[in-house]
């Protein structure tokens, strides 16, 4: 028997569409339409600042141009390097902190909140104030480093060797709490009876860690890294304000280059092709990653 007939007002079906409709419409208009528009533009020689000119269809020319450009591969390398180090550091430090916090000492809730603070801040504003900390003449960071070992004067942002590390340090400072929180949630989900059973079987603490703790927290860690990976692949705001891609193009991540092509040179067609390539890359990697993650979870 159908339940809805008994009650007054709109039918459940009408309510369902009324409730979902506006959200789906907005997502289509502001998210999907622009994406389709970008894909269409990627096959043309459109320049968004030249309003009068009709864009012409150029086929795959933009894509070929992007993929053949040496500089693009350099940006991809910079991005990959940034992602590798940030994810590695955030995984190790985040998991470490989570394991320590899971010891449930007094006051650990307050400390967790304080540790989380950096990730709540505006990345662009964080980028600005780190330029002050990294200042080669008066920066606190430089002072502290030189306090422990005197390297003399060095410029984290101005040197092409150090600049990639400057963004890795800031990103790690900001986002390690995220991996930490997800890992902590994972650790808290491990049922106590597993450890009790292990204790009965006389497993050592180390064995318990390797065979119980690590496997249960791993899926959570991998998930945190997926989120961070997607975010850092798109990374723009913090790095723009900190190094603006420099010096030269030492920290010019793919998305910073994309912004230059799209909003400074106004090569809309070309930059759309680049954007589509980036999107397909992240989507592809994301999919493979999720498959691997699920395999690990099943075991």
């Amino acid at each position, binding site marked *: 028997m159908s339940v809805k007939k008994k*009650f*007054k*007002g709109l039918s*459940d079906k009408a309510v369902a569409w009324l*409730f*979902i409709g506006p*959200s*789906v419409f*907005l*997502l289509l*208009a*502001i998210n999907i339409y*622009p*994406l389709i*528009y*970008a894909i269409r*533009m990627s096959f043309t020689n459109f320049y*968004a600042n030249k309003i009068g000119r009709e864009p012409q269809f150029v086929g795959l020319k933009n894509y070929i141009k992007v993929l053949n450009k040496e500089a693009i591969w350099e940006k991809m390398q910079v991005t990959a390097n940034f992602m590798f180090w940030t994810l590695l550091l955030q995984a190790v430090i985040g998991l470490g902190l989570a394991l*320590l*916090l899971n*010891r449930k*000492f007094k006051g*650990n809730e307050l*400390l*967790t*909140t*304080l*540790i*989380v*603070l*950096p990730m*709540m*801040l*505006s*990345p*662009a*504003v964080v980028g*600005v104030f780190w330029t*002050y900390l990294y200042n080669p003449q*008066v*920066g*606190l960071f430089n*002072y502290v480093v030189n306090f422990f070992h005197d390297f003399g004067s060095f410029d984290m942002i101005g040197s092409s060797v150090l600049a990639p590390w400057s963004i890795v340090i800031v990103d790690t400072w900001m986002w390690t709490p*995220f991996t930490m929180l997800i890992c902590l*949630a994972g650790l808290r989900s491990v049922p106590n009876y597993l450890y*009790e059973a292990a*204790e009965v079987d006389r497993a050592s603490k180390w064995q318990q860690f390797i065979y119980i703790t690590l496997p249960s927290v791993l899926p959570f860690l991998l998930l945190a890294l997926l989120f961070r990976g997607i975010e850092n692949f*798109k990374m*723009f705001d913090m790095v*723009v304000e900190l190094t603006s891609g420099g010096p030269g193009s030492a920290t010019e991540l793919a*998305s910073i280059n*994309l912004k230059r092509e*799209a*909003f400074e040179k106004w090569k809309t067609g070309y*930059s*759309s092709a680049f*954007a589509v390539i*980036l*999107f397909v890359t*992240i989507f592809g990697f994301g999919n493979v990653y999720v498959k691997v993650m699920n395999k690990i979870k099943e075991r």
Partner: protein
Amino acid sequence: MDTSRSYLEPSSFSKKLAATIIIVYTVITLIPISWMVMTSFKNVNSAISYPPEVFFEPSLEGYVNLFTNRSRQSQEYLDSLPPPENWYEELVRSREMVITGPSKFLGRYSNSMIIGFGSTFASVFLGALAAYAFSRFRVPLKDDLLFFILSTRMFPPIAVAVPIFIMYRKLGLGDTHLGMIILYTVVNLSLAVWLLKGFMDEIPKEYEEAAMIDGYSRLQAFFKVVLPQAMTGIAATAIFCMIFSWNEYAFAVLLTQFNAQTAPPFIPTIIGEGGLDWPAIGAGTTLFLLPVMIFTIILRKHLLRGITFGAVRK
């Protein structure tokens, strides 16, 4: 000796060690933020002294510089002026400058407020409606729709910024509050739907069914029974949406310029004479970050739950 301790509890030594390491990490991680707050109370000279000054004479110069525009004047001109009327004018005069008017900071800050609150309200409201429908009704292609909603978060903002820029120019929404509110609403919508669906799932169906048997329509039951029950979840979701809108930079810097620009693209442009005015930037940063920090500390339980939510529920 403490005999109540189960053998699963970590020993008190290992607890102390863990606590020590965590406290050291907390202190280190808070240094950059504290340093910026301290800088905001320094004067221009003490902000650029080396070695960095930990103890200094506090000054409100940074805050005065943040809120005013000033111009440098000759000593003769300053002497010819009537005496300063208030403390901040006196402070500026002591630097051989006069105040020429208020700066843009207050306008940018209130833009951040308007756009932040507007988009948060809209995305939580729309998100709650959609979340309820996904939670209670049999919606065709439900999983596909939910995944579609989530996948919109993967687009790099710059990939869609050009089409949105063109679209907004045509619709007259470019550089307007309404345009930015709509944009941030949509960006937040996917998170709002996902978070709120989890909270709605936890509210027993029987509540609204009981109300409907008492003669409420489905809509009345939703607004009068379900929404009040979901208040915790709504609060948590609202904080996330607010923090995102408050902190957002890429769209703001690309799509706004004069009218609807928010604070994050503005703060980096605060420039003093001969280089960046660090106390003023510190002051802007402090005022901008303060609401988020207070929110985080007050509402920590909701926030921490929200962050780990997606992961725990899968």
